[in-house]
């Protein structure tokens, strides 16, 4: 009897874990898939299909350390752009501005960040719309 209970609980736990995982997985896939489209429409012209940037004019999106360090600001960059400044990416200085996307909804920002954050060698997991909303509150 005791064994049966243990077995039952174990199975239930397994089911819960698997279903939770797959829900998170599904959310990730949804974000990533839609993010691909946002990226194509809004980012790819400049940053390139493989996030490679353009010579010394436009920085690539492959600097995993930079993205991690500035994770809380990424949503602000997408929405409000970057004013004329010098940014060091992959050890190289890039000078210039990035255009804003003031009309972009938070969900699109979350999706495109999830796409960028998990492409071009980056592995940041899902960046949810809730995180984006919190980050947007704090934009300078």
């Amino acid at each position, binding site marked *: 009897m005791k064994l049966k209970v243990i077995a039952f609980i174990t199975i239930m736990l397994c089911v819960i874990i698997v279903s939770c995982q797959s829900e998170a997985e599904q959310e990730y896939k949804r974000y990533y898939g839609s993010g691909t489209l946002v990226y194509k429409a809004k980012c*790819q*012209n*400049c940053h*390139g299909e493989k996030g490679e940037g*353009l*010579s*010394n*004019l*436009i920085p690539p999106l492959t600097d995993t350390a930079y993205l991690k360090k500035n994770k809380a600001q990424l949503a602000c960059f997408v929405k409000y752009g970057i004013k004329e400044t010098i940014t060091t990416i992959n050890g190289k200085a890039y*000078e210039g501005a990035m*255009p804003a996307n003031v009309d972009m909804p938070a969900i699109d920002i979350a999706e495109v960040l999830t796409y960028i954050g998990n492409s071009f060698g980056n592995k940041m997991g899902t960046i949810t719309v809730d995180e984006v909303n919190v980050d947007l509150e704090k934009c300078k």
Partner: protein
Amino acid sequence: MKKFAGLVLITLAFTACKFNDADKPRLPIMGNRDAVTKTINGKQVTDTVYQTIPDFKFVNQYGDSITQKSLKGDIYVADFFFTTCPSICPIMHRNMLTVYNEFKNVPDFKIISHTIDPKHDSVAVMKKYADKLGISGNSWWLLQGNKEQTYDLGQKDYLVAVKQDDGTPGGYVHQGWFVLVDKQKRIRGYYDGTDEKQVAKMIGDIKILRAEVNTEIAQ
């Protein structure tokens, strides 16, 4: 049997060569054209006069004056851009960079990019842009000059749309055309500079055009 197969192969190879030779591809001559009837030696002769790109005067990223004379004997590709362009210019110049790298050591080929925002894009700004893009030497010129002249050249001669419009991102309307011009200054091709496939076709067409010109000279 093996011998027969070999024979077939050789015959096929030969006909393939011959076929290619007889059917050498030629690029069309584009733009407006006029029929002009002249009297030569008492005979009426009608000739087609093709539109050509007229003379111009601009300054390149090194501050040198550039006119049609500077392009004498060259095939060239022209486009219109501005350095602060947020929309299609980066992708155009990413693709143009492929063209530049393919032909940068070819003496009779050039790329000229006209800025449609000469007020901002001074010679110094253009030089900086060229450096950042990673281009040097004299095979790709970034040209700056009189705004009216640039817009006229774009609209009336290259037949591409160029205009100022504060309603569009960046403030200028322009299309991403690459215009291929031959040594006689005639337009030989239009390619969408934002489309990698069309730019690849242009690279092929430039090779055809160089071969065409060289055989014409040989004859």
